[in-house]
């Protein structure tokens, strides 16, 4: 797997004429991302911040050769937009939209699995690579450098906001970020933290990865599994939030059938244990993260 994004990334924004998408496009351009085109059916011929808008993806591909797409359309239109990007054989699709009907997400993931498309999200705040001055999505807002400075630490987070808070923690401790990825806050997402580890394993500019986890899903357990199998061999510092939810009454009594499939794997305490046993460094607070990195990185990898 080559890098998700770098200086050669050419981005298309689906739904570029929307209020949020216009703002995000402005911020991405200011940061240095090559936003080459946008698609909004019915708005072909217009432009947003100087970026040409097309009616269809096919037209945009012919005219501007995008290598990635950011989907910023309403929930009801997202399946169609993602299917359009997959049909155009775009290798990377980042979905910002939150609150997509679950069945639509199932359909788009089935399509992307068949086509081999890499999906980030839904409900992702984006991906940023500070060293190349490129970001896809709202990540970092209009001042990405407040949280993200170039460096050699990878970030994978189930929370968009915590992606930035981790970047900030690293910056204040003298570290920087190679690539930071907000995988999206939903249980059904295209690229899970475990699959994204390959990105960082192969990236010569990443020395270690910081992972932010939450209750529910098997994402953290799957990460532990990859470490145990030596599929990921760089240091990994993990923070899993939400232990308090274990002490609240169980959320859903309808989960009978699902519980069979999922077992008891949603608990933060179990996730921490799995990660620790696999050899990851487990932090209790973000404050611990720089010290844990320092304990595992070699002298040349540490900040001055």
């Amino acid at each position, binding site marked *: 797997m080559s890098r998700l994004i770098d200086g050669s990334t050419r981005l298309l924004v689906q739904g570029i004429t929307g209020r949020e998408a216009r*703002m995000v496009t402005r911020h991405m351009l200011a940061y240095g991302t090559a936003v080459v085109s946008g698609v909004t059916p019915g708005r072909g011929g217009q432009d947003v911040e100087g970026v040409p808008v097309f009616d269809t993806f096919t037209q945009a591909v012919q005219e501007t050769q995008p290598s990635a797409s950011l989907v910023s359309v309403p*929930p*009801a239109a997202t399946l169609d937009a993602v299917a359009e990007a997959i049909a155009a054989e775009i290798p990377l699709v980042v979905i910002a939209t*939150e*609150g*997509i*009907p*679950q*069945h*639509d997400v*199932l*359909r788009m*993931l*089935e399509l992307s*699995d068949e086509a081999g498309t890499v999906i980030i999200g839904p409900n992702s705040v984006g991906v940023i690579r500070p060293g190349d001055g490129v970001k896809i999505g*709202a*990540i*970092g*807002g*209009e001042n990405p450098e*407040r*949280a993200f400075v170039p460096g050699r630490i990878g970030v994978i987070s*189930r*929370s*968009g*906001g*915590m992606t*930035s*808070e981790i970047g*900030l923690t690293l910056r*204040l401790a003298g570290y920087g970020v190679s690539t930071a990825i907000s995988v999206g*806050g939903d*249980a*059904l997402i295209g690229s899970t933290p475990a699959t994204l580890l390959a990105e960082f394993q192969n990236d010569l500019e990443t020395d270690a990865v910081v992972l932010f986890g*939450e*209750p529910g*899903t*098997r994402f953290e357990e799957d990460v532990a599994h990859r470490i145990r199998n030596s599929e990921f061999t760089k240091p990994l510092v993990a*923070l899993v*939030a*939400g*232990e*308090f*939810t274990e002490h*609240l009454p*169980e*959320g*859903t*009594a*309808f989960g*009978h*059938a*699902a*519980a*069979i*499939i*999922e077992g008891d794997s949603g608990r933060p305490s179990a996730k921490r244990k799995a990660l620790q046993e696999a050899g990851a460094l487990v932090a209790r*607070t*973000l*404050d611990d993260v720089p010290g844990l990195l320092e304990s595992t990185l070699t002298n040349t990898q540490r900040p001055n």
Partner: protein
Amino acid sequence: MARILEHHAKQMFAQAGIPVPEGYPAISPDQAATIAEGMGGPVVIKALVPVGKRGEAGAVQFAEDSRGASLAARDLIGRYIGAYMIDTVLVEERIEIAAELYLSIIVDRDERKPRVVLSASGGVSIEQVAREDPGAMVTEPISMIRGLPEYRARELWVRAGMTGPVIPKLGQLTNRLWRLFVEHDLRLIEINPLFRTTTDDIVAGDAVMSVDDAASFRHPELARFVVPGTDRSWRPMTDLEIEAQRVHELDPYRGSARYLELEGGNIGFLCGGGGASLLLYDHLIEAGGQPANYAEIGGNPTEQKVAGMTRVVLSKPGVEGLFVAHNITNNTQTDVIARGVVTGIRHAGRDPSSLPVVAREAGLHDEEGRKTFEEAGIVYFGERTTLAEAARTMVDAMSSGGTR
């Protein structure tokens, strides 16, 4: 994951061609007796509450005649199952049962596909079947694109050990259940028990359905069936939770706002975003604090929404402090949060300069945010203070009783 009560779910089953027992809801013992009288045979009386495992909770009773139905209804109506009071019961004809089967369709989030689960032994919880007789359970992921045609459903039932004239009926019913699942954007649909009758018919003994709130915009047909608040299933929504939802829905497209009332506690919790709020809550607990609620605001909410949520958080009796903290924001305007919080505190009839409040708000427009907080007499922290440090400061502020 809002739920649909059994009688409504069975109504949808019947429309989809899935056989169900004849039955009607009753809100009084007399009405239950009248229904049983009309059926003229043994009946089942079931509490209509959005709670699982009703059998074990004694919420399913059997009666031989109308008098028995009246007694059962009298016993059930007014009782609590979990946190839900029974106000309606379902009176159903009793089916002559030869066997109890199991059938469900769920979303398997690991496989990222729907999954059909079926078994020749039902009636008990499927967890028990999985534990005691795993061979009896057959389960397979289903493609959203290719669906679950009858021939595949028949194969699965044969694998589960079924034979004879019920096979085509099971195939057809399973395919109809799949179509219901797709047509209504369901997250879960379960029949347990699924009856094989003494005359080799297949009848749904129960019907559990939960809908996808995110798909409600394209399912007006479900609106009148959905039990509000059942996505948090252990109890009905509290008044403050209903109020918080109302605040959010005044402007549903700008920012997120969630409020969950918890037992006890004295710290009003108003944090965000989704991940940071979980971490901040953990940190308060670790520092010895006692949050009175969990509330999350994010996604650049309006000042009115922040103010309304602040007022709701402070309205819970016993709340003597307020913790407002976020991760460094991407696009959420911290000055808007600051103005909303200060306004909300005043609307709640509290004085921001004497109520213990700790704010940690870094990111967009945080210089203006700092000014607003500090002018109101609120302790403000920016990016140099970590989330854990802010939580400890909040707990310290509570123990010093608000005198700073």
